[in-house]
């Protein structure tokens, strides 16, 4: 199963297409990716990117491209759980120039809705301690810091999303 298409008032979450990878390459070259694990080379980028596509078939979750209603690719939201993650994670990236307009909030809200519709009980976001903008977004989504949750990296925090506290339809209002 490919990624399901999810529509929001201003955005469409859709399966990735090949040309999306160029935008990812540009994004990872820039400073906006400094809080993320950057690919070591283009081959590594290929595996990161295509894995989030093929993940849908393997485990029923993966990455969505975020595009505006006029078809502009602006980032990615992904629900993933590679084997070294203790839990399913929801993560997001916005490309340069599209921040500050609530797009990540709107896209992540749609992805959370979808997750709760699939009867997922909880999701986490692993966020670097000094990634203040992502922490602010996690909190706007209603996630709460979970100091007891397991995480591999010393400088990461775990924010926990739950169906009863976030992703509800009022988030669109």
């Amino acid at each position, binding site marked *: 199963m*490919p990624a399901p298409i999810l529509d929001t008032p201003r955005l469409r979450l859709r399966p990735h*297409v*090949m040309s999306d990878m160029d935008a990812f390459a540009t994004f990872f070259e820039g400073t906006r990716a400094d809080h993320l694990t950057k690919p070591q080379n283009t081959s590594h980028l*290929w*595996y*990161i990117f295509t894995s*989030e596509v*093929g993940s849908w*078939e393997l485990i029923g979750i993966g990455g969505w491209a975020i595009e505006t209603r006029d078809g502009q690719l602006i980032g990615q939201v992904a629900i993933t759980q590679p084997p*070294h993650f203790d839990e399913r994670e929801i993560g997001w990236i916005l490309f340069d120039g599209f921040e500050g307009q609530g797009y990540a909030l709107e896209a992540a809200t749609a992805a959370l809705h979808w997750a709760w519709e699939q009867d997922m009980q909880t999701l986490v976001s692993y966020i670097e301690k000094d990634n203040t903008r992502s922490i602010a977004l996690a909190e706007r989504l209603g996630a709460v810091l979970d100091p007891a949750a397991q995480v591999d990296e010393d400088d990461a925090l775990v924010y926990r999303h739950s169906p009863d506290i976030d992703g509800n339809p009022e988030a669109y209002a």
Partner: protein
Amino acid sequence: MNPARTLQTPRLQLRLPVARDLPVYTAFATSARAKTVGGPFETAQAFDKLAAMIGHWELRGWGRYVIELDGRAIGHCGPLDTFGGTPEMTWTLWDATAMGQGFATEAVQEVIRHLFDDCGWSDVKICIDPANDASHRMAQRIGAQAINVPGPARWPEAKTYTLTRKAA
């Protein structure tokens, strides 16, 4: 035509990777046998690599097949194109007990026949670890010609071959 999603040989079925392949593929990819293909890999890398095989199909409309023998996945083979160059023909047997019986040759020859004859592809390249004698012999058996160009950036020491429609 676009490459078929399933192919059949006298002894083998070729199909897209699916979820039930993950434990079998992971066992191979994390083992010492994966040394000739850049491994052994971590479990998380094995997930990414199998997921990437499926993602390749979704993004390019063609890709690598899992080789099944009597319903059991024994390896994978098929074309790979990570960056838009000449597609690379690849093959790997996951199951050591399946080696030495011509299965990889049988599977790869059918994929090549399909790509060249049915789909009109003109050539593929092949990259093989210098120490992987069995694969070098197989490359010669299927008509590939050794060429003196470095391997891809991810694997510069690989020995490279080309296989053209005329030679196959």
